[in-house]
């Protein structure tokens, strides 16, 4: 445990030093503020949005951005350190490889969590100071959104480690990371929509659709945040999908956790057996 915390501490220290923390926090805060204050600019009006609308906007932002940031942070954690030669030295110390991986994970989640909570928190605070009415329902939805965003980041950090433990070169890891991001964030939903259109509801039952949505962590995250609370789902265009959904928030959270755990365990398994 001590070793895990030591490695997490070093990871955080390095992220602070090379401005990762600063850059990520600023980026998320800037985008969240923009969406909060100018979210309806394309429709011609510039006004502060109600929290429900802000949540919908931030979810769309998070789905794109957090997996990307998480993969950027994690994709070269293992292969990069092996390539630079720092891993060889680290592993000659009395520390287990799964401890190294877990330590990095804790460190990266801390960085990502700090940036997300601070970045989105600022947006919520600004909203509060403008006098927008915030009921407890949408506040809960907002908190769920922030926490599940960190969890979504964790999923892709874990996937990044898995990629990193599998490949021999950093460039390969970067390529695969981009591919994974494209597949989960963009292509999967397009494919799924296409499939539904072609099928016209003949073969794909609601249960199958649920399974297909659970197979993509970004969809789990969307369902959790867009369909979860009534105050939000009225603003979310995808509410049509959620009619068929019977999955509760707890199930969705559990599935997201599973999406963190499985790649992480698999990465640990591969990394422990890898020869340097």
């Amino acid at each position, binding site marked *: 445990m001590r070793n895990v915390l030591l490695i997490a501490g070093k990871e955080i220290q*390095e992220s602070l*030093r090379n401005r990762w923390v600063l850059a990520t926090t600023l980026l998320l805060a800037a985008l969240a503020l923009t969406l909060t204050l100018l979210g309806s600019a394309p429709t011609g009006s510039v006004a502060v949005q109600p929290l429900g609308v802000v949540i919908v906007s931030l979810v769309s932002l998070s789905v794109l951005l957090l997996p990307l940031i998480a993969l950027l942070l994690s994709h070269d954690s293992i292969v990069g350190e092996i390539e*630079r*030669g720092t891993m*060889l*030295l680290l592993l*000659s110390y*009395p520390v287990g490889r799964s401890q190294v991986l877990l330590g990095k994970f804790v460190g990266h989640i801390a960085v990502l969590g700090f940036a997300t909570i601070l970045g989105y928190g600022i947006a919520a605070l600004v909203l509060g100071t403008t006098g927008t009415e915030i009921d407890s329902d949408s506040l809960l939805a907002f908190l769920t959104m922030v926490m599940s965003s960190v969890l979504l980041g964790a999923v892709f950090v874990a996937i990044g480690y898995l990629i990193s433990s599998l490949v021999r070169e950093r460039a390969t890891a970067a390529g695969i990371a981009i591919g994974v991001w494209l597949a989960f964030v963009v292509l999967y939903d397009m494919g799924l929509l296409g499939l539904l259109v072609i099928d016209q509801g003949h073969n794909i039952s609601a249960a199958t659709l649920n399974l297909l949505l659970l197979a993509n962590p970004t969809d789990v995250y969307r369902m959790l945040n867009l369909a979860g609370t009534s105050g939000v789902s009225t603003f979310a265009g995808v509410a049509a999908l959620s009619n068929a959904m019977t999955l509760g928030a707890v199930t969705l959270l559990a599935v997201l956790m599973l999406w963190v755990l499985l790649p992480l365990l698999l990465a640990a398994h591969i990394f422990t057996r890898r020869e340097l």
Partner: protein
Amino acid sequence: MTATIEVTNLAKRYGPVEAVRDVSFALEPGEIVALVGHNGAGKTTLLKLLLGLVRPTAGSVRVLGDDPAAGEFEARRRLGFLPENVSFNPALTGRELLSFYARLKGQSVPDALELLDKVGLGLASSRRLGTYSKGMRQRLGLAQALIGEPRVLLLDEPTSGLDPALRLDFYDIMEVRRASGATVILSSHALAELGDRAGRIIILNQGRMVANGTIDELRHLARLPAKIRCRSTEGNANILSHKLSAAAACRRVNGHTVEIDVLPERKLEILQLVTDLPVSDIDVIPPSLDELYAHFLRAEAAS
């Protein structure tokens, strides 16, 4: 005395490449061991096997009584390692990095930071590692290997990139560690400077151990001729070379110096002969580690 490192019939295969084959040796506390062999001879693989970073295909490794590949961490607390081409994260300072490694080894941080002065990095300790030169990184690498007074030191090409003055410092530090009972293994190409410092020499060739012993034992085994270099008194060089050529193979080096190659058992006989001739100076040069190394490689190739 119990061996600190024991290797039995060790073999490591990477696909079709046999990086280490059938190597066995046991090393005692208080020994400096030179691991010699050219690139690809299996030195680094052997060190990685000793560290437990790769698992042997066959045979066994014991370091301080533990199998390093089994994930037993206790032994690693008393082990120091300096990798070839050591590198660090450029964002941290020397002091931060050494504190991190000291904590990871469960050692006192202030003690570890004193090592920075010992390797001559005291002034640069609060600078970022990105600004360090190759020699400074090497010194920092040495400092981290010395954390916690390790009983086994594994150093891969430790003197590459060090300037001559630092090399001397480096060997002094090694000598202190050896005297306090550590086993020091260093792999190197710099054979000439290792020869008189290493108590034992292990020569690797294509993964096989072709020699293992003190430099005297190796000289004895190799039966390489020593060189006797005689400087004649003024104007007597011709007489000298004439008389000597009758006794052994000899050659003129320049106007007044003659060199003779003698096998170990004839050395005294020839020396006695030489002292009766008109010479002003005699040097006896035993075969160097370079020559021994070349000899063992040739012997290996011939067999």
